[in-house]
């Protein structure tokens, strides 16, 4: 998916916020450079803004609309198209302003166009660097390392449980080993691309099958996923580690076990996921938990930037992790 550089996701709020920030910081710098005295900065900035803000607004709007089209182009074609678009927009805005309003200071459309091209190049270069910092080799390696963090506790206990079945219930031992093989295949795969949520749920069920071998009826699970769109795309291994946490911190410390509730539903253009488990503060030792949560948080950020978030809360003797992410399909 990410062999080559990609254009920034122009449907993402975070990207637009960054564009706004960069352009406005540049405008402030420009005002500081142009002003001869400290007092001149603000009036100059106001004048500049009158020109710059309409350009930004129109740009962001058209980029948002054109995003699907731009995405079909090759990376360098996309860059070229965006540069042209920006130069055209600023030339248009500037000539419109100088024709219909009496701006003294407004430069010629050609100059504005050249400046806009330069600013656009800076912004695009920023996104290029940011993407490089986040996605390829380094981040990729870090992601892999993070993902590999299945608990040794789970591995060895499960093997122990399967061993106990071999003499008495060989059939159950077989299917448990098959589930484990599937689970580890996914855990060891290169999990870079988004997967349909139904696939992740399947994996979770296999994981829970293995756990219920050990925990028997102490482990109760309720799926509230009737409204879940099965084709919604999520980063792989988002739910399974959360369930593993829920089992480790919520079920195992309780002599009678307890209930894990998984709730998934769409809301507007978003997907809401929550997982809750029983929680007793006196059993608190949340180091491993923090690790998994941090990992998931980071991966959500890599995939969705500001469009996704993760929250945790502990109340009424239950611990709940909630995730909100954009509802995307193939």
């Amino acid at each position: 998916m990410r062999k080559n550089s990609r254009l920034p996701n122009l449907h993402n709020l975070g990207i637009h916020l960054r564009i706004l920030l960069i352009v406005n910081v540049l405008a402030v710098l420009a005002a500081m450079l142009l002003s001869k005295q400290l007092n001149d900065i603000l009036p100059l900035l106001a004048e500049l803004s009158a020109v710059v803000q309409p350009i930004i607004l129109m740009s962001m709007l058209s980029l948002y609309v054109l995003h699907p089209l731009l995405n079909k182009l090759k990376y360098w074609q996309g860059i070229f198209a965006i540069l042209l678009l920006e130069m055209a927009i600023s030339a248009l805005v500037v000539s419109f302003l100088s024709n219909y309003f009496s701006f003294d200071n407004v430069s010629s459309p050609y100059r504005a166009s050249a400046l806009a091209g330069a600013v656009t190049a800076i912004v695009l270069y920023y996104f290029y660097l940011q993407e490089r910092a986040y996605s390829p080799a380094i981040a990729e390696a870090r992601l892999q390392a993070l993902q590999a963090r299945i608990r040794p506790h789970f591995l060895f206990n499960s093997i122990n449980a399967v061993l106990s079945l071999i003499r008495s219930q060989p059939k159950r031992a077989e299917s448990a080993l098959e589930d484990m093989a599937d689970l580890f295949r996914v855990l060891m795969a290169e999990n870079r691309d988004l997967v349909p949520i139904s696939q992740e749920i399947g994996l979770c069920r296999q994981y829970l099958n293995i756990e219920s071998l050990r925990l028997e009826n102490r482990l109760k699970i309720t799926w509230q996923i009737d409204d879940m769109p099965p084709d919604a795309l999520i980063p792989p291994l988002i739910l399974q580690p959360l369930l593993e946490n829920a089992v480790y911190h919520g079920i195992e410390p309780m002599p009678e076990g307890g209930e894990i509730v998984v709730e998934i539903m769409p809301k507007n253009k978003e997907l809401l996921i929550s997982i809750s488990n029983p929680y007793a503060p006196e059993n608190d030792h949340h180091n491993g938990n923090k690790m998994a949560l941090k990992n998931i948080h980071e991966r959500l950020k890599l995939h969705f930037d500001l469009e996704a978030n993760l929250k945790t809360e502990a109340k009424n003797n239950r611990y709940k992790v909630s995730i909100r992410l954009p509802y995307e399909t193939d």
Partner: protein
Amino acid sequence: MAEGLKILIADDETPARNRLRDLLSDVGNISIVAEAKNGKEALDLAAETKPDLLLLDIRMPLMDGLEAATHAQKLEPKPHIIFTTAYDTYAIKAFDLNAVDYLLKPIRLERLQAAIDKAHALKPAQILALRPLQKTRGHLSIHERGRVILVPIGDIVYLRAELKYVTVRTVEREYLLEESLTHLETEFAERFLRLHRNCLVASAFIAGYEKRADETGDSQWHALLKGVPETIAISRRQQHLVKQA
């Protein structure tokens, strides 16, 4: 002993107990006298069945294997102890350092055999070395007429130092405990207030404070307690606690 070495198994997971039982059936000259699902049950059953050896899983609900091992020191005869665990880096490091016996799950027959052959009772130094691995104890173990009684920490109203013992007061009755009050104070610092030089009171059981005059006419603050009639005199040094309340 006709039945050989008497063994008690404690693990919260049925398959883990099954596996141990299977393996032990291949080891000669032993008998399994009881199986427990947590540390507390293990101690109760151990008091009844007097096993020579406890096989304790570390991570169990209600009471973990480490705490159970500590309380088991009061059993007569003192049982040998082998811990079992799937994965616990801290505990394993401490076991290795202090020559405490343990088995890693999945357990191998040869290892089990070897561990049983060399199993021994824990020495006081080893018990001390396991302390830092434990969360604060959930119970105090009281040795009374050859039995070990577990008193949940949450049931304790106050702890009062006597000449040689500490009196443990619950709503129902009193127990005598052979531990130092200072040590108890550090271990359960968040639960108990030191209202007097010789007395720790559970803050959850304090109903209120009252000023009373004693025989000499001096007045002194007393703490009123929930569920028990007696009150605890508060030493002058600790009176700031009353003002905070």
